[in-house]
Protein backbone atom coordinates (compact mmCIF):
# COMPACT_ATOMS: atom_id res chain seq x y z
CA UNK A 1 0.00 0.00 0.00
CA UNK A 2 1.47 3.37 -0.95
CA UNK A 3 1.58 6.06 1.68
CA UNK A 4 -1.03 8.49 0.28
CA UNK A 5 -3.58 5.70 0.08
CA UNK A 6 -2.68 4.66 3.60
CA UNK A 7 -2.96 8.25 4.80
CA UNK A 8 -6.44 8.61 3.32
CA UNK A 9 -7.59 5.41 4.98
CA UNK A 10 -6.15 6.54 8.27
CA UNK A 11 -8.05 9.83 8.05
CA UNK A 12 -11.30 7.97 7.43
CA UNK A 13 -10.56 5.59 10.32
CA UNK A 14 -9.73 8.45 12.68
CA UNK A 15 -13.00 10.23 11.99
CA UNK A 16 -14.95 7.00 12.34
CA UNK A 17 -13.29 6.46 15.69
CA UNK A 18 -14.21 9.98 16.82
CA UNK A 19 -17.81 9.50 15.69
CA UNK A 20 -18.22 6.14 17.43
CA UNK A 21 -16.61 7.55 20.56
CA UNK A 22 -19.17 10.37 20.67
CA UNK A 23 -22.00 7.86 20.16
CA UNK A 24 -20.50 5.63 22.82
CA UNK A 25 -20.23 8.46 25.35
CA UNK A 26 -23.83 9.44 24.69
CA UNK A 27 -25.01 5.85 25.07
CA UNK A 28 -23.05 5.20 28.26
CA UNK A 29 -24.08 8.41 30.01
CA UNK A 30 -27.58 8.98 28.64
CA UNK A 31 -29.04 5.71 27.39
CA UNK A 32 -27.66 3.15 29.85
CA UNK A 33 -29.62 3.05 33.13
CA UNK A 34 -27.80 3.65 36.44
CA UNK A 35 -26.98 0.52 38.37
CA UNK A 36 -29.28 -0.22 41.30
CA UNK A 37 -26.67 -0.73 44.03
CA UNK A 38 -23.59 1.12 42.80
CA UNK A 39 -25.29 3.94 40.95
CA UNK A 40 -23.46 5.94 38.33
CA UNK A 41 -20.01 4.59 39.15
CA UNK A 42 -20.99 1.37 37.40
CA UNK A 43 -20.86 3.24 34.07
CA UNK A 44 -17.09 2.83 34.16
CA UNK A 45 -17.83 -0.82 33.42
CA UNK A 46 -18.46 -0.05 29.72
CA UNK A 47 -15.01 1.50 29.29
CA UNK A 48 -13.38 -1.14 31.45
CA UNK A 49 -14.69 -4.03 29.36
CA UNK A 50 -13.99 -2.19 26.10
CA UNK A 51 -10.38 -1.53 27.05
CA UNK A 52 -9.82 -5.10 28.27
CA UNK A 53 -11.30 -6.40 25.03
CA UNK A 54 -8.87 -4.34 22.96
CA UNK A 55 -6.02 -5.66 25.11
CA UNK A 56 -6.97 -9.26 24.31
CA UNK A 57 -7.46 -8.58 20.60
CA UNK A 58 -4.20 -6.65 20.31
CA UNK A 59 -2.14 -9.45 21.86
CA UNK A 60 -3.79 -11.94 19.56
CA UNK A 61 -2.97 -9.76 16.54
CA UNK A 62 0.64 -9.58 17.79
CA UNK A 63 0.75 -13.38 18.03
CA UNK A 64 -0.47 -13.81 14.46
CA UNK A 65 1.98 -11.17 13.22
CA UNK A 66 4.79 -12.93 15.10
CA UNK A 67 4.00 -16.29 13.49
CA UNK A 68 3.78 -14.68 10.05
CA UNK A 69 7.13 -12.97 10.58
CA UNK A 70 8.85 -16.24 11.38
CA UNK A 71 7.36 -17.84 8.26
CA UNK A 72 8.33 -14.90 6.07
CA UNK A 73 10.64 -12.25 7.59
CA UNK A 74 8.88 -9.19 6.22
CA UNK A 75 9.37 -5.97 8.19
CA UNK A 76 5.64 -5.26 7.81
CA UNK A 77 4.74 -8.06 10.25
CA UNK A 78 7.27 -6.87 12.81
CA UNK A 79 5.76 -3.39 12.66
CA UNK A 80 2.25 -4.79 13.16
CA UNK A 81 3.40 -6.88 16.14
CA UNK A 82 5.18 -3.93 17.73
CA UNK A 83 2.19 -1.63 17.20
CA UNK A 84 -0.22 -4.23 18.60
CA UNK A 85 1.78 -4.96 21.73
CA UNK A 86 2.19 -1.24 22.39
CA UNK A 87 -1.52 -0.55 22.02
CA UNK A 88 -2.49 -3.69 23.89
CA UNK A 89 -0.33 -2.73 26.84
CA UNK A 90 -1.82 0.75 26.98
CA UNK A 91 -5.37 -0.55 26.82
CA UNK A 92 -4.57 -3.18 29.42
CA UNK A 93 -3.31 -0.42 31.71
CA UNK A 94 -6.48 1.57 31.06
CA UNK A 95 -8.63 -1.47 31.85
CA UNK A 96 -6.65 -2.02 35.07
CA UNK A 97 -6.99 1.58 36.21
CA UNK A 98 -10.67 1.68 35.31
CA UNK A 99 -11.21 -1.63 37.08
CA UNK A 100 -9.38 -0.38 40.14
CA UNK A 101 -11.50 2.77 40.27
CA UNK A 102 -14.59 0.64 39.96
CA UNK A 103 -13.29 -1.91 42.46
CA UNK A 104 -13.03 0.67 45.23
CA UNK A 105 -16.81 1.27 45.54
CA UNK A 106 -17.73 -2.29 44.48
CA UNK A 107 -15.38 -4.33 46.67
CA UNK A 108 -14.18 -1.56 48.97
CA UNK A 109 -10.59 -2.12 47.87
CA UNK A 110 -8.46 -0.91 44.97
CA UNK A 111 -6.78 -4.22 44.41
CA UNK A 112 -7.29 -7.92 45.13
CA UNK A 113 -5.16 -10.86 44.09
CA UNK A 114 -8.14 -12.49 42.44
CA UNK A 115 -7.52 -14.87 39.52
CA UNK A 116 -8.37 -12.35 36.87
CA UNK A 117 -6.32 -9.58 38.42
CA UNK A 118 -3.38 -11.93 38.81
CA UNK A 119 -3.65 -12.84 35.15
CA UNK A 120 -3.71 -9.19 34.10
CA UNK A 121 -0.58 -8.55 36.16
CA UNK A 122 1.28 -11.44 34.53
CA UNK A 123 0.16 -10.31 31.07
CA UNK A 124 1.26 -6.76 31.79
CA UNK A 125 4.70 -7.83 33.01
CA UNK A 126 5.20 -10.24 30.12
CA UNK A 127 4.37 -7.70 27.44
CA UNK A 128 6.25 -4.87 29.16
CA UNK A 129 9.35 -7.09 28.99
CA UNK A 130 8.82 -7.29 25.20
CA UNK A 131 10.05 -3.70 24.92
CA UNK A 132 13.07 -4.44 27.08
CA UNK A 133 13.99 -7.21 24.66
CA UNK A 134 13.51 -5.02 21.59
CA UNK A 135 15.46 -2.19 23.15
CA UNK A 136 18.46 -4.42 23.76
CA UNK A 137 18.91 -5.55 20.13
CA UNK A 138 20.39 -3.24 17.53
CA UNK A 139 20.30 -5.42 14.44
CA UNK A 140 16.90 -4.91 12.87
CA UNK A 141 16.49 -8.36 11.36
CA UNK A 142 17.54 -10.08 14.58
CA UNK A 143 15.26 -7.83 16.62
CA UNK A 144 12.30 -8.85 14.50
CA UNK A 145 13.13 -12.53 14.80
CA UNK A 146 13.63 -12.51 18.57
CA UNK A 147 10.59 -10.33 19.16
CA UNK A 148 8.47 -12.72 17.09
CA UNK A 149 9.64 -15.74 19.10
CA UNK A 150 9.06 -13.86 22.34
CA UNK A 151 5.56 -12.75 21.39
CA UNK A 152 4.59 -16.38 20.69
CA UNK A 153 5.96 -17.60 24.03
CA UNK A 154 4.29 -14.66 25.77
CA UNK A 155 0.91 -15.62 24.37
CA UNK A 156 1.40 -19.21 25.53
CA UNK A 157 2.13 -17.82 28.98
CA UNK A 158 -1.11 -15.89 29.02
CA UNK A 159 -3.09 -18.99 28.08
CA UNK A 160 -1.32 -21.00 30.78
CA UNK A 161 -1.85 -18.26 33.33
CA UNK A 162 -5.52 -18.22 32.45
CA UNK A 163 -5.68 -21.95 33.19
CA UNK A 164 -3.53 -21.71 36.32
CA UNK A 165 -5.46 -18.96 38.01
CA UNK A 166 -8.60 -21.10 37.80
CA UNK A 167 -6.90 -23.19 40.47
CA UNK A 168 -7.07 -20.39 42.96
CA UNK A 169 -10.81 -20.80 42.91
CA UNK A 170 -10.72 -24.57 43.24
CA UNK A 171 -8.29 -24.75 46.11
CA UNK A 172 -9.08 -21.54 47.98
CA UNK A 173 -12.84 -21.13 47.79
CA UNK A 174 -12.77 -18.65 50.69
CA UNK A 175 -10.28 -16.36 49.03
CA UNK A 176 -12.17 -16.02 45.79
CA UNK A 177 -15.89 -15.75 45.98
CA UNK A 178 -18.24 -14.69 43.22
CA UNK A 179 -17.72 -11.07 44.20
CA UNK A 180 -14.01 -11.06 43.53
CA UNK A 181 -14.32 -12.16 39.95
CA UNK A 182 -14.99 -9.03 38.00
CA UNK A 183 -16.71 -10.63 35.04
CA UNK A 184 -18.92 -12.75 37.17
CA UNK A 185 -19.68 -9.73 39.29
CA UNK A 186 -20.67 -7.80 36.22
CA UNK A 187 -22.88 -10.61 35.10
CA UNK A 188 -24.60 -10.66 38.44
CA UNK A 189 -24.87 -6.92 38.31
CA UNK A 190 -26.67 -7.13 35.02
CA UNK A 191 -28.99 -9.84 36.19
CA UNK A 192 -30.29 -7.82 39.07
CA UNK A 193 -32.43 -5.75 36.73
CA UNK A 194 -35.75 -6.40 35.15
CA UNK A 195 -35.42 -7.56 31.56
CA UNK A 196 -35.86 -4.15 29.94
CA UNK A 197 -33.07 -2.41 31.83
CA UNK A 198 -30.65 -5.34 31.52
CA UNK A 199 -31.17 -5.34 27.75
CA UNK A 200 -30.34 -1.62 27.67
CA UNK A 201 -27.11 -2.34 29.52
CA UNK A 202 -26.16 -5.17 27.16
CA UNK A 203 -26.81 -2.95 24.14
CA UNK A 204 -24.63 -0.23 25.68
CA UNK A 205 -21.89 -2.75 26.36
CA UNK A 206 -21.96 -3.98 22.77
CA UNK A 207 -21.78 -0.45 21.41
CA UNK A 208 -18.85 0.19 23.70
CA UNK A 209 -17.00 -2.90 22.49
CA UNK A 210 -17.59 -1.93 18.85
CA UNK A 211 -16.36 1.59 19.54
CA UNK A 212 -13.21 0.33 21.19
CA UNK A 213 -12.58 -2.06 18.31
CA UNK A 214 -12.75 0.83 15.85
CA UNK A 215 -10.48 2.84 18.11
CA UNK A 216 -7.97 -0.02 18.16
CA UNK A 217 -7.96 -0.30 14.37
CA UNK A 218 -7.43 3.44 14.04
CA UNK A 219 -4.58 3.43 16.57
CA UNK A 220 -2.99 0.42 14.91
CA UNK A 221 -2.86 2.09 11.50
CA UNK A 222 -1.66 5.39 12.95
CA UNK A 223 1.09 3.54 14.79
CA UNK A 224 2.11 1.66 11.63
CA UNK A 225 2.26 4.97 9.75
CA UNK A 226 4.37 6.45 12.52
CA UNK A 227 6.76 3.53 12.23
CA UNK A 228 7.01 4.05 8.47
CA UNK A 229 7.82 7.73 9.00
CA UNK A 230 10.36 6.75 11.61
CA UNK A 231 12.04 4.36 9.21
CA UNK A 232 12.15 6.88 6.37
CA UNK A 233 13.71 9.46 8.68
CA UNK A 234 16.37 6.93 9.65
CA UNK A 235 16.97 6.16 5.96
CA UNK A 236 17.31 9.87 5.15
CA UNK A 237 19.75 10.35 8.01
CA UNK A 238 21.82 7.45 6.70
CA UNK A 239 21.92 8.99 3.25
CA UNK A 240 22.94 12.33 4.67
CA UNK A 241 25.76 10.89 6.75
CA UNK A 242 27.03 8.82 3.83
CA UNK A 243 27.53 11.91 1.64
Amino acid at each position, binding site marked *: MNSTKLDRRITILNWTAVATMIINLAVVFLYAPPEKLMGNVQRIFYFHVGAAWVGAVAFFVALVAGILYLRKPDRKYDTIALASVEIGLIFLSMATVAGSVWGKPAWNTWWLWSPRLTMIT*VAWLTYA*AYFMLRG*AIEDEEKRGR*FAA*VYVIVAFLTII*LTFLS*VRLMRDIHPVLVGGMADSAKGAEQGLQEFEDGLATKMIISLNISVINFSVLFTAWLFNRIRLQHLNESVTALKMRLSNR
Partner: protein
Amino acid sequence: MKPTTSSFFSTAWTIAWKDLQIEKHTRQIMSVMVMFSLVTVVMFNFALETNLDAARNVATGLLWATILLAGTLGLNRTMAVERENQAMDTLLMAPINRNAIYAGKVLSTTIFTLALELILVLLFIVFFNKPLWRPPVLLILFLGTIGYVAAGVLIASMSIQTRARDVLLPVLLLPLSLPLVLPAAMATAAYMFPQQPLFAEVQTPIMLIMLYDALMLTAGFTTYHYIVES
Protein backbone atom coordinates in the same frame (compact mmCIF):
# COMPACT_ATOMS: atom_id res chain seq x y z
CA MET B 1 23.04 -35.47 5.98
CA LYS B 2 19.61 -36.51 7.11
CA PRO B 3 19.53 -36.59 10.90
CA THR B 4 18.21 -39.80 12.33
CA THR B 5 16.58 -40.27 15.70
CA SER B 6 19.52 -42.01 17.28
CA SER B 7 21.96 -39.35 16.08
CA PHE B 8 19.59 -36.71 17.49
CA PHE B 9 19.69 -38.21 20.96
CA SER B 10 23.39 -38.99 20.89
CA THR B 11 24.15 -35.42 19.74
CA ALA B 12 21.97 -33.98 22.49
CA TRP B 13 23.63 -36.21 25.03
CA THR B 14 27.11 -35.31 23.76
CA ILE B 15 26.36 -31.62 24.20
CA ALA B 16 24.97 -32.19 27.69
CA TRP B 17 27.97 -34.39 28.54
CA LYS B 18 30.32 -31.65 27.38
CA ASP B 19 28.60 -29.20 29.77
CA LEU B 20 28.86 -31.69 32.61
CA GLN B 21 32.57 -32.18 31.89
CA ILE B 22 33.17 -28.43 31.87
CA GLU B 23 31.30 -28.17 35.15
CA LYS B 24 33.32 -31.02 36.61
CA HIS B 25 36.50 -29.05 35.99
CA THR B 26 35.39 -25.51 36.73
CA ARG B 27 32.44 -26.02 39.15
CA GLN B 28 31.38 -22.47 38.39
CA ILE B 29 27.67 -23.05 37.73
CA MET B 30 26.91 -25.16 40.78
CA SER B 31 28.97 -23.06 43.16
CA VAL B 32 27.29 -19.83 42.08
CA MET B 33 23.80 -21.33 42.24
CA VAL B 34 24.35 -22.98 45.62
CA MET B 35 25.95 -19.91 47.18
CA PHE B 36 23.21 -17.67 45.85
CA SER B 37 20.50 -19.99 47.20
CA LEU B 38 22.19 -20.18 50.58
CA VAL B 39 22.37 -16.42 50.83
CA THR B 40 18.74 -16.11 49.74
CA VAL B 41 17.48 -18.65 52.26
CA VAL B 42 19.46 -17.05 55.08
CA MET B 43 18.22 -13.62 54.00
CA PHE B 44 14.61 -14.81 54.02
CA ASN B 45 15.16 -16.30 57.45
CA PHE B 46 16.32 -12.93 58.74
CA ALA B 47 13.55 -11.06 56.98
CA LEU B 48 10.90 -13.33 58.47
CA GLU B 49 12.66 -13.68 61.82
CA THR B 50 9.97 -11.79 63.67
CA ASN B 51 7.42 -14.37 62.65
CA LEU B 52 8.76 -17.91 62.40
CA ASP B 53 5.33 -19.41 61.84
CA ALA B 54 4.92 -17.18 58.81
CA ALA B 55 8.29 -18.38 57.53
CA ARG B 56 7.14 -21.98 57.85
CA ASN B 57 3.90 -21.24 56.05
CA VAL B 58 5.56 -19.59 53.09
CA ALA B 59 8.40 -22.13 52.92
CA THR B 60 7.13 -23.86 49.77
CA GLY B 61 6.70 -20.54 47.99
CA LEU B 62 10.19 -19.54 49.09
CA LEU B 63 11.59 -22.80 47.80
CA TRP B 64 10.19 -22.17 44.34
CA ALA B 65 11.22 -18.53 44.33
CA THR B 66 14.77 -19.50 45.27
CA ILE B 67 14.92 -22.17 42.56
CA LEU B 68 13.75 -19.73 39.89
CA LEU B 69 16.14 -16.97 40.94
CA ALA B 70 19.13 -19.27 41.25
CA GLY B 71 18.04 -20.88 37.98
CA THR B 72 18.50 -17.63 36.07
CA LEU B 73 22.12 -17.53 37.25
CA GLY B 74 22.73 -21.09 36.08
CA LEU B 75 21.05 -20.46 32.73
CA ASN B 76 23.12 -17.35 32.11
CA ARG B 77 26.28 -19.25 32.92
CA THR B 78 25.55 -22.25 30.64
CA MET B 79 24.81 -19.87 27.78
CA ALA B 80 27.84 -17.69 28.46
CA VAL B 81 30.03 -20.77 28.18
CA GLU B 82 28.89 -21.17 24.57
CA ARG B 83 29.50 -17.52 23.82
CA GLU B 84 33.02 -17.40 25.11
CA ASN B 85 35.58 -18.40 22.45
CA GLN B 86 32.75 -18.48 19.88
CA ALA B 87 31.89 -22.04 20.91
CA MET B 88 28.32 -21.53 19.74
CA ASP B 89 29.42 -20.59 16.22
CA THR B 90 31.45 -23.77 16.04
CA LEU B 91 28.49 -25.80 17.24
CA LEU B 92 26.30 -24.20 14.58
CA MET B 93 28.86 -24.97 11.89
CA ALA B 94 28.78 -28.66 12.76
CA PRO B 95 26.36 -30.72 10.64
CA ILE B 96 23.97 -31.34 13.52
CA ASN B 97 20.32 -30.67 14.11
CA ARG B 98 19.72 -27.31 15.81
CA ASN B 99 17.11 -28.90 18.02
CA ALA B 100 19.69 -31.37 19.30
CA ILE B 101 21.67 -28.39 20.59
CA TYR B 102 18.53 -27.12 22.33
CA ALA B 103 17.79 -30.56 23.77
CA GLY B 104 21.38 -30.91 24.99
CA LYS B 105 21.29 -27.53 26.67
CA VAL B 106 17.95 -28.30 28.31
CA LEU B 107 19.32 -31.62 29.50
CA SER B 108 22.48 -30.23 31.08
CA THR B 109 20.72 -27.26 32.69
CA THR B 110 18.03 -29.56 34.04
CA ILE B 111 20.70 -31.73 35.64
CA PHE B 112 22.33 -28.68 37.26
CA THR B 113 19.00 -27.36 38.51
CA LEU B 114 17.96 -30.75 39.88
CA ALA B 115 21.26 -31.01 41.75
CA LEU B 116 20.62 -27.57 43.20
CA GLU B 117 17.12 -28.61 44.22
CA LEU B 118 18.47 -31.61 46.06
CA ILE B 119 20.64 -29.31 48.17
CA LEU B 120 17.81 -26.83 48.63
CA VAL B 121 15.40 -29.52 49.78
CA LEU B 122 17.87 -30.57 52.47
CA LEU B 123 18.34 -26.94 53.51
CA PHE B 124 14.61 -26.32 53.72
CA ILE B 125 14.03 -29.48 55.72
CA VAL B 126 16.63 -28.25 58.21
CA PHE B 127 15.56 -24.60 58.30
CA PHE B 128 11.80 -24.87 58.01
CA ASN B 129 11.11 -28.40 59.26
CA LYS B 130 8.89 -29.36 56.34
CA PRO B 131 8.44 -32.90 54.93
CA LEU B 132 9.95 -32.07 51.56
CA TRP B 133 11.50 -35.53 51.18
CA ARG B 134 8.14 -37.04 50.21
CA PRO B 135 8.34 -38.65 46.73
CA PRO B 136 5.39 -36.68 45.26
CA VAL B 137 7.13 -33.43 46.23
CA LEU B 138 10.29 -34.55 44.48
CA LEU B 139 8.22 -35.49 41.43
CA ILE B 140 6.62 -32.03 41.38
CA LEU B 141 10.06 -30.44 41.64
CA PHE B 142 11.28 -32.58 38.75
CA LEU B 143 8.30 -31.78 36.52
CA GLY B 144 8.44 -28.08 37.29
CA THR B 145 12.15 -27.94 36.53
CA ILE B 146 11.70 -29.34 33.01
CA GLY B 147 9.23 -26.61 32.03
CA TYR B 148 11.25 -23.86 33.64
CA VAL B 149 14.46 -24.94 31.96
CA ALA B 150 12.72 -25.46 28.60
CA ALA B 151 11.52 -21.84 28.67
CA GLY B 152 14.77 -20.70 30.26
CA VAL B 153 17.13 -22.09 27.62
CA LEU B 154 15.02 -20.52 24.87
CA ILE B 155 14.94 -17.09 26.52
CA ALA B 156 18.57 -17.22 27.66
CA SER B 157 19.69 -18.06 24.12
CA MET B 158 18.05 -14.81 23.07
CA SER B 159 19.08 -12.61 25.96
CA ILE B 160 22.74 -13.65 25.76
CA GLN B 161 22.83 -12.33 22.19
CA THR B 162 21.52 -8.89 23.15
CA ARG B 163 23.30 -5.80 24.33
CA ALA B 164 22.01 -6.19 27.88
CA ARG B 165 23.28 -9.81 28.10
CA ASP B 166 22.64 -11.48 31.45
CA VAL B 167 20.68 -8.59 32.98
CA LEU B 168 17.80 -9.17 30.62
CA LEU B 169 17.16 -12.83 31.43
CA PRO B 170 15.30 -12.47 34.76
CA VAL B 171 13.18 -9.64 33.39
CA LEU B 172 12.05 -11.82 30.49
CA LEU B 173 11.97 -15.22 32.11
CA LEU B 174 10.41 -14.64 35.53
CA PRO B 175 7.06 -13.32 34.22
CA LEU B 176 6.96 -16.23 31.79
CA SER B 177 7.43 -18.72 34.61
CA LEU B 178 4.67 -17.31 36.81
CA PRO B 179 2.02 -19.72 35.45
CA LEU B 180 4.38 -22.52 36.46
CA VAL B 181 5.09 -21.25 39.98
CA LEU B 182 1.44 -20.94 40.85
CA PRO B 183 0.41 -24.60 40.42
CA ALA B 184 3.85 -25.88 41.49
CA ALA B 185 3.88 -24.01 44.80
CA MET B 186 0.25 -24.95 45.35
CA ALA B 187 0.86 -28.66 44.75
CA THR B 188 3.99 -28.62 46.92
CA ALA B 189 2.13 -26.86 49.73
CA ALA B 190 -0.57 -29.54 49.67
CA TYR B 191 2.04 -32.10 50.81
CA MET B 192 3.30 -30.08 53.74
CA PHE B 193 0.72 -31.37 56.22
CA PRO B 194 1.15 -34.49 58.36
CA GLN B 195 -1.62 -36.11 56.38
CA GLN B 196 -0.91 -36.58 52.68
CA PRO B 197 -3.52 -35.22 50.29
CA LEU B 198 -5.54 -37.40 47.93
CA PHE B 199 -4.29 -37.45 44.37
CA ALA B 200 -7.54 -35.85 43.22
CA GLU B 201 -6.63 -32.73 45.20
CA VAL B 202 -3.32 -32.17 43.45
CA GLN B 203 -4.30 -33.62 40.09
CA THR B 204 -5.15 -30.30 38.42
CA PRO B 205 -1.97 -28.46 39.46
CA ILE B 206 0.20 -31.38 38.35
CA MET B 207 -1.62 -31.56 35.02
CA LEU B 208 -1.00 -27.83 34.57
CA ILE B 209 2.70 -28.23 35.27
CA MET B 210 2.87 -31.00 32.68
CA LEU B 211 0.95 -28.85 30.21
CA TYR B 212 3.43 -26.04 30.80
CA ASP B 213 6.31 -28.47 30.19
CA ALA B 214 4.75 -29.73 26.97
CA LEU B 215 3.93 -26.27 25.60
CA MET B 216 7.31 -24.75 26.45
CA LEU B 217 9.22 -27.71 25.00
CA THR B 218 7.13 -27.48 21.84
CA ALA B 219 7.76 -23.75 21.62
CA GLY B 220 11.45 -24.39 22.19
CA PHE B 221 11.78 -27.07 19.53
CA THR B 222 9.81 -25.10 16.95
CA THR B 223 11.49 -21.72 17.43
CA TYR B 224 15.03 -22.47 18.63
CA HIS B 225 16.55 -22.47 15.15
CA TYR B 226 15.21 -18.95 14.56
CA ILE B 227 17.19 -17.76 17.57
CA VAL B 228 20.56 -19.32 16.85
CA GLU B 229 20.73 -18.71 13.10
CA SER B 230 22.96 -15.78 12.27
